[in-house]
């Protein structure tokens, strides 16, 4: 059955976000709130490159979401996948806030530190769990996590750049990507990020090697002389 039919008509799709590579619409799928993530053709890059990247990323995304759910890590359920139309229909996570918006909303409010620490503890433990099943997210930012503060639940989304690897180096880089995105998006959160890492270390079996790699990648960055 075509996704269009299942999601009622395309006319009922409402644009939620234009992300980096995809347009995300909300719709209903068999009576459930759903989102359609459509990776439209990127005309700036060569068609053969675009096709290759899009297909690879879509299948990685679907596979990784399933892998997470199988291991008790929160990620949207996949309802439908259509490679030719370049779209994935998935569960709409409606009971949470985009983490970036949540963190920004804490600014100036009461108990900011406490709420933040509590949150980064949770992020650290979820990422530890994810890395322990050898899943690398590939795009860890606060735009790709949805947080429900009341139930203290963190849902990971946007697995397009994810892949399976057991290498400490890959996990270290995953954390490095998050660190930079986190610190640049949310200034003056260095202490919180350290809490996140501590929590990660406590929850992951292989944390030592990963954190060591993280340190190496950081040093590489700081040592680069940046000529020109």
């Amino acid at each position, binding site marked *: 059955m075509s996704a269009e039919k299942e999601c009622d008509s395309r006319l009922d799709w409402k644009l939620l*976000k*234009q*992300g*980096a*590579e995809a347009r995300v619409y909300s719709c209903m799928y068999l009576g459930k709130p759903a989102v359609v993530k459509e990776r439209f053709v*990127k*005309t*700036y*890059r*060569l068609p*053969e*490159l675009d096709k290759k*990247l899009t297909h690879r990323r879509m299948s990685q995304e679907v596979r990784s979401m399933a892998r997470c759910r199988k291991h008790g890590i929160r990620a949207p359920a996949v309802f439908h996948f259509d490679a030719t139309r370049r779209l994935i229909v998935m569960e709409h996570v409606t009971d949470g806030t985009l983490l*970036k918006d949540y963190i920004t909303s804490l600014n100036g409010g009461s108990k900011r530190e406490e709420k933040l620490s509590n949150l980064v503890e949770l992020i650290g433990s979820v990422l530890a769990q994810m890395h322990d099943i050898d899943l690398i997210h*590939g*795009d*860890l*930012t606060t*735009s790709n996590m949805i947080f429900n503060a009341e139930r203290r639940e963190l849902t990971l989304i946007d697995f397009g*750049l994810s892949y399976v690897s057991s290498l400490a180096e890959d996990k270290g*880089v*995953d954390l*490095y*990507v*998050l660190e*930079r*995105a986190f*610190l*640049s*998006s949310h*200034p003056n959160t260095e202490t919180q990020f350290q809490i996140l890492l501590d929590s990660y270390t406590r929850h992951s079996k292989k944390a030592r090697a990963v954190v060591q790699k993280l340190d190496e*990648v950081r040093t*590489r*960055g*700081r*040592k*680069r*002389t*940046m*000529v*020109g």
Partner: protein
Amino acid sequence: MVVAIGFEGSANKLGVGIVSDGVVLSNVRHTYHAPAGQGFLPRDTAAHHRKHVLDVLRRALDEARVTPADIDCVCFTKGPGMGAPLVSVAVVARTVAQLWRKPLVAVNHCVGHIEMGRLVTGARSPTVLYVSGGNTQVIAYSQQKYRIFGETIDIAVGNCLDRFARVLKLSNDPSPGYNIEQLAKQGTKYVELPYVVKGMDVSFSGILSHIESQGREKLERGECTAADLCYSLQETVFAMLVEITERAMAHCGSQEVLIVGGVGCNVRLQEMMATMAEERGGKVFATDERYCIDNGAMIAQAGWEMFRSGQVARLEDTWITQRYRTDEVEVTWRTD
């Protein structure tokens, strides 16, 4: 009226420029070209700068029709860059500042690129892609800092292009990247290369070693031409850069993008960026080689902003540093 003079020499370009309240009065440059097949070495580059700096300074003053008395501050590149060339130019800036009795302003090279790009294009608060021989960064401003959202985790994109140009023994005049761009126009066949994007970060070292080994073999077997390799390399690395820029724009909710740095004068990169921006209802800003490539005016412009907001360096603090990250600078001149 505030008149600032800027001295730049962090890599192989030596430049002196004079800026007065947003108007570029002069911008003189002299470039050291290493022999084809070679990169520029710190010692030779510093010798080049020492040899030409007084002449470049004289021309900058003459073209701007100003005398030292008209100048309010002497700005120079504190870093990042190569040690010896940085020192050779900083020494001159310190000397003239003392002769003329003017305050010194120590400028971060990357911030120079950003401020010059903003001045020339009128972009207000863009997401910045900074791409050059030594840098690859995606930057956005917030809360008095230029924050780095994405970066290369190994070599810079310009370095990747330059080193490949050396493999092909392309000339370093006017720049290896320019010659790759020209040759790429004749390329027709896309040779698949690794494509490595990690969130808003990129990696180029794998691509370089792949094209250096397997690309060269393909070339020798006659399976592709040098032009095809240039074309494929550009299409691949530029697609990666546009992708991480777009990711940062989506993340920050920004609609403007500004390209700065030497690789930023590549027309193909500008085109690809413009296509991406249009697709999201945004706008791209870029400058031509006068301002993209390292120059003195950009140091004067950033220094002008710093000087007006009170950032003056004491003589004992006018040392240079090879490592100086964009996000270390306190952006005291912006109020947004």
